[in-house]
């Protein structure tokens, strides 16, 4: 097999100062956006290294360069003391780097052993698949890695942790010496996480270097040896995990100087609009309690997999609820469909505009009026004029830049598309407006426009909920913030307490101090 392709002997690789990988002065920009500004790092074999940073800090770009997905503008990569150049992911794989993405690359309907050889199947002399040999090789690999799995099993039957493990074993089949794991534990239960960690320890004993990308600082503390923190495209901190606490790490990630002034002033709140008690749905969220009053802007934040979108989609009637109560204006309600939610005065602007909000076969006016079709129609016949008037009103407030109302929605930029979606909800005149990632894929100017609108709506006594993963955005517009972690509300912050340190510490499963 391919063991011979090792360029260096095992002993050489185990030497204490031997760097299996070095990245020097990496720079990368996308257009005018400098994503990486001179980043250098190195790591040894048998080391688990945490790569930390906020969204947009440059983690994924750096790893994509290492994985051959992106090409760097300048800098050098040295693997096993040889300078290498990656133009494609295959180049990177050939030097022994394996990138385990969040979305696993396994075929559910094939057995494990066939998945292990996907794309490099073993063949017999006659050209048919050599299933026996593939099976044997897989079994051998599992034995070596202490994995207790039947290679005959279908991948579909495996839970996420075992899928991760199969991917790791597949990487080991190709003699990977460095494994990059991109947030491997986000969708796993505690027990499954334990399983993956054991696997990582085995890899460590085989002298494989692991780069572990994660937002969960507690996990980082348990499993990692070293940390690297990126912020705004710079490597701002690195060192041994044993020297730091989770609070230190959170501080490194956010930085001291990042502080945007809150936009809010003193104000009087109105009646309670929404209260939920003990809301639970499957594994998405459990036992949620909170309330919001007229004119209030409530932030809800957390990291990937926190369940905030799921929570509010359930409140909006798009998903279900297993248990718990929802009160609107003090009265208990049952909301079983989005139509019902809208008639009760709830509006929900979803995340991922393209998948959830934009109807690409329709023009701007129609996209801006879909919610109010039933409202502005006479016996089912749509009152176009009424829609145009309403839309005209809102587009001025929103500073919407567009051509004709009958142009296709896709002719607009992302920011303007988002404003159209916002306009459609404004037309519905909601009492409770839920905005899920309202500034996703929106440029800076449009962001400010959207913040202005949020404040203006609150002044008009609408209760606004802003869901966002960007802490500074939350701090800027919200009165009060709930921080979620794995489907539960980890804590609530407001006023002085509402700063990035506290939010980050709650979002990573910690407590307020």
């Amino acid at each position, binding site marked *: 097999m391919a063991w011979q392709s090792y360029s260096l002997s095992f002993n050489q690789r185990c030497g204490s100062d031997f760097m299996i990988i070095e990245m020097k002065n990496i720079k990368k920009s996308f257009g005018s956006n400098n994503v990486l500004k001179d980043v250098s790092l190195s790591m040894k074999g048998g080391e688990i290294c945490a790569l930390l940073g906020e969204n947009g800090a440059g983690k994924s770009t750096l790893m994509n360069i290492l994985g051959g997905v992106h090409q760097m503008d300048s800098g050098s990569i040295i693997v096993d003391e040889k300078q290498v150049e990656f133009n494609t992911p295959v180049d990177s794989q050939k030097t022994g780097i394996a990138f385990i993405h969040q979305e696993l690359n396994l075929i559910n309907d094939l057995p494990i052993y066939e998945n292990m050889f996907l794309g490099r199947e073993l063949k017999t002399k006659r050209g048919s698949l050599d299933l026996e040999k593939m099976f044997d090789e897989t079994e051998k690999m599992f034995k070596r890695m202490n994995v207790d799995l039947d290679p005959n099993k279908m991948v579909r039957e495996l839970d996420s942790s075992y899928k991760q493990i199969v991917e790791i074993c597949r990487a080991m089949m190709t003699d990977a010496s460095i494994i990059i794991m991109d947030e491997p534990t986000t969708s796993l239960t505690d027990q499954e996480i334990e399983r993956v960690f054991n696997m990582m320890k085995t890899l460590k004993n085989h002298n494989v270097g692991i780069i572990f990308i994660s937002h969960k600082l507690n996990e980082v503390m348990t499993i990692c040896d070293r940390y690297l923190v990126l912020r705004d495209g710079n490597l701002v901190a690195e060192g041994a995990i044993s020297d730091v606490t989770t609070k230190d790490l959170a501080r490194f990630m956010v930085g001291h100087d990042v502080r945007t002034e809150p936009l809010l002033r003193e104000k009087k709140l109105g009646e309670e609009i929404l209260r939920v008690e003990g809301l639970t749905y499957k594994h998405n969220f459990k036992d949620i309690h909170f309330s919001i009053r007229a004119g209030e802007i409530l932030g809800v934040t957390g990291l990937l997999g926190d369940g905030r979108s799921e929570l509010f989609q359930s409140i909006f009637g798009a998903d279900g609820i297993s248990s718990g109560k929802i009160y609107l204006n003090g009265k208990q309600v049952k909301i079983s469909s989005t139509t019902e939610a809208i008639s009760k005065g709830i509006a929900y602007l979803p995340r991922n505009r393209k998948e959830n909000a934009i*109807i690409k076969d329709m023009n701007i006016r129609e996209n801006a009026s879909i919610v109010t079709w039933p409202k502005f129609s006479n016996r089912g*016949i749509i009152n176009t004029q009424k829609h145009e008037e309403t839309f005209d009103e809102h587009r001025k407030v929103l500073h919407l830049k567009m051509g004709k109302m009958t142009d296709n929605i896709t002719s607009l930029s992302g920011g303007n598309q988002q404003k159209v979606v916002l306009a459609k909800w404004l037309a519905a005149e909601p009492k409770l407006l839920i905005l899920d990632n309202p500034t996703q894929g929106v440029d800076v100017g449009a962001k400010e426009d959207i913040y202005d609108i949020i404040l203006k709506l609150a002044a008009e006594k609408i209760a606004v909920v802003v869901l966002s993963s960007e802490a500074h955005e939350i701090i800027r517009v919200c009165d009060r913030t709930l921080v979620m972690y794995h489907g539960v509300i980890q804590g609530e912050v407001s006023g002085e307490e509402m700063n990035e340190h506290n939010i980050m510490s709650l979002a990573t499963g910690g407590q307020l101090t």
Partner: protein
Amino acid sequence: METKPATDKEKNTGKKRNFFEWFKYKWSNEPLFSTAIALVVMVILQTLVLGFDYDSVGSWFQAWTNNWINILRNNAGVAIVALGMTLVIMTGGIDLAVGSTLVATGAFTMVLLDTGNRGLLGIMGMTGIPAFIVTILLVMALGYLLGSLIGVTITKGKVPPFIATLGAMMIFRSVTQHFMQGYNTTVPTEFLQIASFKIGNVMIMPIIYWAVIAYILYYVSKRTTFGRQIIAVGSNERAARLSGVNVNKVKLRVYALMGLLVSIAAIIQVSRIGSMDFSNAGRGMEMDAIAAAVVGGTSMSGGRGFIMGTVYGMLIIAVMNNLLNLFGVPPFLREAFKGFIVICAVLLQKKQQDS
């Protein structure tokens, strides 16, 4: 930056600099333009093939019109079904059961109106015009019901439309054939007036039904909440639901409407022929309806569709059949041409969308 595409378009539409540019703009920006052009070309071709070998312009025109009225009348039934099919496809679904629903509703017409002594209404002592009206209403109700059944299977049962309607296709025809064994039915001759009533000595009624239904559905698809929600559901079901559209209700109503239209087609067919062959009537109708919709620019993945396009599509296929007839192409080869036209139409639309 953002407004650039719009201004470009305005430049092109506002002042048509010359015919070629205008044509090019229309061709790539108006989805129905190429379909309409194709239709015009085929009609010209057909006119040329018919020839001008007549005594006078008057008699030439007479022959030309007669030919056209024949084409339209023969296709009215399937054309009405194709209109409903367009709406179904626009939601991202499909209805394979139209032929069987046609047979089921047609059979029901017979059961109600049989001229022998077994007609249900006859037994109840109802004859003549009142009986016809009751029959039409009941048959339409049955069509609506059968369509709703399919709709419920698809929405509540979450069965994919292809499977649900494939099953319904087999069930409806088989059940109809079983219960209609030995019924040697004919409807009263007066009932035939529904299709063969003459206006100015021309049998034009089926064409009028087609035109009226096409206009109503055109209006529904363009101007009503229901019509626009169909597009929203077909284009992005998730976004539609998150915008408060009751997706299941829209789908259910579309399949019910499809059933209703099929029952109208069944009444037209029964009243034209006076009877119905339960094992063969409506076979392949679903494919003809889908073909017309597709040639008319409707996208099989949903969200994009045109009622007028389907009218054009139906006419294109009909004129082509007429042409093949005039050319004397052997009957077995004609289907091949139909297939060819369908594929060409989609290739053409793909090209337009890419450009």
